C-alpha cells in the first residue's frame, strides 16, 4: 500500500505516526508541507535517512519547487516524482492511507 504524508514534520506528528505504523517495505510519498521532511541538514534528516532504507520514500517535485527546495537538497535515496508519478504510485502500490 501507499502512505501519503502532507504535514510538516516540524509542526505535526503525522510523519512519526506513519513511520510507527506503516509496515517496513511499503511506499511513502511526501507532498505539500510534507516535503520539508525530505531535506538534508534538518533535525529530522536522520529519521528520514533511516526511513529511506526501510521504505521506498518518494517526494513530490512540484511541492519541493514551490517551497524553494533545490533537488540537490533532497536526501539521497528519496526519489523525486511529479503528479504523474504520484498517480503511478497509487496504481502500483494499491490502497492509499492519507496521514492527514
Amino acid at each position, binding site marked *: *500500500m501507499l502512505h501519503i504524508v502532507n504535514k510538516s514534520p516540524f509542526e505535526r*506528528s*503525522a510523519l512519526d*505516526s506513519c513511520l*510507527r*505504523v*506503516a*509496515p517496513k517495505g*511499503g511506499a511513502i510519498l511526501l507532498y505539500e508541507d510534507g516535503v520539508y521532511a525530505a531535506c538534508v541538514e534538518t533535525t529530522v534528516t536522520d529519521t528520514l535517512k533511516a526511513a529511506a532504507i526501510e521504505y521506498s520514500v518518494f517526494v513530490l517535485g512540484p511541492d519541493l519547487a514551490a517551497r524553494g527546495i533545490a533537488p540537490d537538497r533532497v536526501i539521497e535515496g528519496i526519489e523525486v516524482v511529479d503528479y504523474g508519478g504520484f498517480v503511478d504510485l497509487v496504481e502500483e502500490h494499491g*490502497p*492509499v*492511507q*492519507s*496521514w*492527514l
Partner: protein
Amino acid sequence: MNELEPDYDTEGVVKKFMFVNRKAPYGTIYALEILETVLISAAFDQDVSVVFMDDGVFQIKKGQDTKAINVKNFSPTYRALEGYDVEKLFVERESMEARGLAVDDFVVPVEVLSAEELGGLMDQQDVIITG
C-alpha cells in the same frame, strides 16, 4: 455525461473499509463528520473497521460533558455502532498509553493493537478513509 459514465453495478461487492480516526473531538469537526460516514457505510454491507489512534483515541473517552462549550456531545453515538453491525473497533496501544489511557476509559469495547499489528491490518484494506 459522456462515454466515461462509470459503471456503478456494485451489487454484491464487499470490500474492506477502514476508517482512521486521528483527531481529537471538539477542537475540530473531523471526529464528528467521519463518524457520520461510518454510520452511512453500515448500509452498504461492507467489511468495516474503525481505528482510533493518535489523538483519535480521545474521541471515545468516557465522561465527556460538552454543556459548557455549547457543542453537542456525540460520544454516545459510538455506542450505537454495534447496532449498525459496526463491531470492529481498534485502538492503537502506543497512542493510548502515551495519553495515559486504558481500555476502561473508553465508552465502547475495543480491541487494542500494537502499531505493528495495526500496520498489518491497514495493509489488508481496500479503502481507507481519513479525516
